């Protein structure tokens, strides 16, 4: 099957959605499909896998409490149209088309068997509410929609109407399960780990650092291993900042620690980091967010702590550090949960969505012949109701 995937955010900036697209692409390729990805790329010198086509650079826009990097402009539109016409795809799969991104641009410019995955959980997105009418006309072109979590599905139902099938995020279980610890790790004195952007408030590193200060009052040798891009000031001693790391090193990080902390304060639709920790066999302490609670089976596969509360987080971590039995129990429970998120299984479900969408169309994906059809629903209200 010839599959065209559209990534909304820059390929060279780490993020959950881009990682999802890359893992999906590589899993589909391993299954024998012919896959092409189009993505924005900010760094012109970065080398890309052979299956990636550059769509141009992005413009940073503040969106929903963090900075989104979006792609616009005639250059990107031309490249997308060429990619669609040359790709001759049986199916096109957009990611996060509800944002003003490359995915929406691709949707404007194509018709045929098109499906989309919605990643975001924005219970009160003003931007979505504002864009709903013009977006709706474009989204009507989708043959099918996928939500990666119940929260993402609820966002679709509330803001866009309609529904979606639920297919969770995936994780390459064996890559994490078989990784070696980093040289010199794990430490005798015990170590906590954090993975994510260090300067993104909703990832919660600040809460974890406060908890770490509480913990080191009684455990002066305890270590904190932090992997993720961004700048952070004023870290206590015993904190190792690795900065942005490769996937291989990230897998090693999970295997180098005794407890993985996910102190996120919100904005999480899913929690891929939890799957990675579970795949690595590392016990988890996570904020009691709906998305995390669901992946962790209400705490059966990970310890939950009050959101944004450093004391609660420190208490939960210390409980695990003091109990090897509890750690082993959580690691085993996590290992059982994560098998259903293994990429080959997840990608097989996605291919069923492709088959269903293809069955709804004759022929593959083609360029939209007409100029972009920006439906203006407000016109109905502006125009008088003629008798």
């Amino acid at each position, binding site marked *: 099957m010839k599959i065209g995937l559209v990534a909304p955010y820059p390929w060279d900036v780490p993020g959950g959605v881009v990682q999802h697209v890359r893992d999906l692409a590589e899993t589909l390729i391993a299954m024998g499909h012919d896959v092409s990805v189009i993505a924005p790329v900010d760094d012109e010198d970065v080398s890309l896998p052979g299956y990636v086509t550059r769509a141009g650079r992005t413009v940073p826009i503040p969106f929903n409490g963090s900075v989104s990097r979006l792609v616009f402009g005639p250059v990107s539109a031309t490249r997308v149209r060429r990619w669609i016409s040359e790709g001759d795809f049986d199916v096109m799969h957009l990611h996060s088309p509800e944002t003003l991104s490359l995915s929406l641009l691709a949707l404007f410019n194509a018709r045929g068997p098109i499906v989309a995955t919605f990643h975001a959980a924005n219970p009160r997105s003003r931007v979505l509410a504002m864009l709903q009418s013009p977006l709706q006309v474009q989204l*009507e072109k989708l043959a099918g929609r996928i939500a990666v979590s119940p929260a993402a599905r609820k966002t679709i139902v509330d803001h866009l109407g309609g*529904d*979606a099938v639920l297919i969770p995020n995936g994780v390459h279980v064996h890559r994490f399960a078989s990784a070696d610890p980093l040289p010199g790790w794990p430490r005798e004195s015990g170590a906590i780990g954090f993975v994510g952007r260090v300067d993104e408030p909703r990832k919660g590193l600040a809460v974890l650092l406060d908890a770490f200060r509480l913990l080191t009052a009684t455990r002066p040798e305890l270590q904190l291993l932090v992997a993720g891009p961004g700048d952070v000031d004023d870290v206590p001693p015993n904190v190792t900042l690795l900065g942005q790391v490769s996937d291989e090193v990230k897998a090693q990080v999970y295997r180098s620690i005794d407890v993985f902390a996910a102190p996120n304060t919100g904005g999480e639709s899913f929690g891929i980091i939890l799957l990675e920790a579970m795949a690595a066999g590392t016990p988890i302490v996570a904020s009691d967010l709906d998305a995390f609670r669901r992946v962790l089976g209400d705490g059966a596969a990970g310890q939950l702590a009050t959101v944004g509360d450093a004391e609660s987080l420190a208490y939960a971590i210390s409980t695990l550090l003091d109990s090897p039995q509890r750690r082993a129990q959580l690691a085993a429970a996590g290992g059982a949960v994560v098998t259903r998120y293994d990429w080959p299984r997840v990608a097989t479900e996605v291919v069923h969505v492709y088959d*269903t969408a293809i*069955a*709804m169309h004759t022929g593959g994906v083609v360029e939209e012949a007409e100029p972009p059809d920006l439906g203006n629903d407000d016109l*109905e209200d502006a125009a008088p109701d003629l008798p």
Partner: protein
Amino acid sequence: MDVVLAIVGVLAVLHVSYATWTARRLDRLHARVDSATAALDAQLRARAHLALAASERAAAGSGRELGDAARAALSVAGLGHDREAAESGLSRALQAAVRDDAGIADSALVDVTTRTSFARRFRNDAVRDALVVRERRIVRWFHLAGSARLPTFFEMDDTALDRRTIEV
């Protein structure tokens, strides 16, 4: 007076072009419902045929019930309430047969139950999108839907067979 006439004229042109655009949008939505309906019908038929084949592998009791349910589903055409009942009955018979003997569910049967639930979800989405536009005043007052029938949702128990229970 000329100014008033000009304004009325401009508004009339805007209104007509909006009506034309809405009519084209509605055409596309109806076409999507039709193709999604055909896709769902094909999946349901494939599921019934695979269930019929599985019934011959099943233990006597649940196998006979599964075969009856599959034949009942195959005997109904269209996507009306009678089809909803027959297909829901087939879903229940499948679940019962697999509970008796997980071995009857091969991967083709598991896959078709997954695709059936996807096809139904996508079709109901298409129906909903079409209904939203058809409820608009401009569509009702100017009969922009023409003679196209009002599409209806297809409701059934489409719980897919669980891949995990099959593999273990």
